[in-house]
């Protein structure tokens, strides 16, 4: 039986130096956990996967708030299943990260609950109404899908690529689900339309910012150099804007970007991104992420007896 960290082939390889390792990567090589990978690669890839795992968990914690208020039983089932997927992604990713030997899963979780770990900026914000839940499904899941698909495309770390295959497939369903949910609000009553416009005003910029600032020039970003990322942040962001602006306009919504314009070639160009509110959010702990993390941390502490009892009875 093989675990995620125990692939059947190519174990225990080593490289003379970083140039030798780079040549392996450039030649289409795939790194496996048993390999004697360069420390720089291990640390960078671990940080990236831990960040991804934290983001999936924080995404689940963001979406959970509105599930009890879902305006229908089937909708409740659907949003539960979606949030379950996000938690499931976190579960898989924490296992992949833990297998790298840098931190255990418990350490990663406890550092997240202690406020010492990072996650996607978008999960700092508050879901104010049910329409925010839809905005997350439509805007944020689509951005996450694009971003993760770009990682899956090349991804040189074997276990990560293997779990990304499943994650990307499920995120594709989430994106379609978001489109259906949006359609209901967009073609629904004036109340529903207004609710989504207000949610769009709150979530457009966080979704656009999910791709991060422009990547460093050339191959200065080690994640690009080592083929963890296959596309630059700004290219992914531009493709997203190009796809979602006409979709939202088509449903009669206004994008909260006064500088948004279509150039002579018909390409949609977003206005200048003001990163300062995001930086302030991250410095101050986010409008709502503090509450979510505090709730999760309190539950983690309150349920310690369960984990202890299970250990005793193991």
């Amino acid at each position, binding site marked *: 039986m093989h675990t995620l960290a125990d692939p059947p082939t190519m174990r225990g390889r080593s490289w003379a130096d970083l140039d030798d390792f780079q040549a392996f990567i450039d030649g289409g090589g795939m790194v496996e956990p048993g390999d004697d990978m360069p420390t720089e690669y291990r640390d960078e890839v671990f940080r990236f996967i831990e960040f991804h795992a934290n983001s999936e*968990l924080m995404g*689940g*914690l963001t979406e*959970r708030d*509105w*599930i*009890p*208020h*879902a*305006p*229908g*039983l*089937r*909708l*409740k*089932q659907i949003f*539960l*299943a979606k*949030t*379950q997927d996000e*938690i*499931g992604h*976190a*579960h898989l990713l*924490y296992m992949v990260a833990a297998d790298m030997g840098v931190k255990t899963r418990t350490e990663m979780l406890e550092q997240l609950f202690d406020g010492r770990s990072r996650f996607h900026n978008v999960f700092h914000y508050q879901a104010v109404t*049910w329409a925010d839940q839809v905005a997350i499904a439509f805007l944020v899941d689509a951005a996450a899908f694009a971003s993760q698909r770009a990682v899956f495309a090349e991804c040189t770390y074997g276990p990560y690529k293997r779990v990304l295959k499943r994650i990307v497939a499920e995120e594709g369903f989430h994106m379609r689900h978001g489109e259906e949910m949006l359609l*209901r609000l967009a073609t*629904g*009553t004036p*109340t*529903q339309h207004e*609710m989504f416009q207000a949610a769009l005003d709150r979530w457009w910029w966080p979704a656009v910012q999910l791709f991060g600032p422009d990547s460093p020039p050339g191959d200065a970003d080690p994640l690009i150099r080592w083929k963890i990322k296959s596309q630059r942040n700004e290219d992914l962001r531009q493709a997203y804007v190009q796809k979602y602006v006409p979709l939202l306009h088509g449903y009669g919504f206004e994008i909260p970007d006064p500088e948004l314009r279509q150039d002579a070639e018909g390409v949609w160009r977003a206005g200048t991104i003001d990163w300062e509110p995001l930086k302030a959010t991250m410095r101050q702990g986010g409008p709502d992420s503090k509450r979510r993390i505090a*709730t*999760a941390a309190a*539950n*983690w502490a*309150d*349920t310690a*007896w*369960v*984990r*202890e*009892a*299970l250990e*005793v*009875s*193991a």
Partner: protein
Amino acid sequence: MTLDAAERALLLALADDEHMVGARHTNWIGLGPFLEEDLAFCSIAQDELGHAIGLYEILLSDLPDSVELDKYAMLRDAADYRSCWLAEVDCSEWSDSLVRHWLYDRAEALRWGALTGCPDERVAALAIRALREEAFHLDHAERFMGRVAGADATGKIAASINRLMPLARGLWDVPAEGDPIASGFTSRPITELAAEWETLIAADLERWGADSTLPGSTVSTDQVHRTIRSEGFDAFHADLQRVILLDTSAIW
């Protein structure tokens, strides 16, 4: 097929129980004691909601006028629900939720089991499907309780059993319309299911070596044929309705 009053009452009680338990389980998504349990509990919640949907559909298809399922499930007056208190109550302590899961699913297996031979084919088909899923729920509850009930040094499990057991007995409160055993709608009377459930619960605790004495049956549950809602129901109900009431003409 027209259900008689006792048959409707029995199905409504089961539907509302499944709805309330599913909705309550939902609150654990993202907050379980470990990630694997988050995933398991969430699946159980989805199944219970699915059973509620199936039962509401049967009940609504039997009405002379068309009523939307979600409006029926969520917008009735509190007095018109027939859920039991065990299904309704807030269990924000994990030990309470786990104990409810075990008590409730022990009962569900018996309740659905008594409907698998129902002459109403819709009910029988749903019962057979539900019972397959309930086997997993019960297995989960038994395995989990089996590992923590005897090993819990904090006494939380014992405290939860003592808190919830008196409420749980209200689960067997026969509806005012009666028990539809005479018509053959169910294969076993509610009183018989209740007695077997008590035996199974006691046997579970003995097998697990749990430090708990079952509270005596003299404790009043006062659920009056499931017509009285539990403490905290109104807030819970308002939470369920928060979005759908924003615009009842909307398709959400």
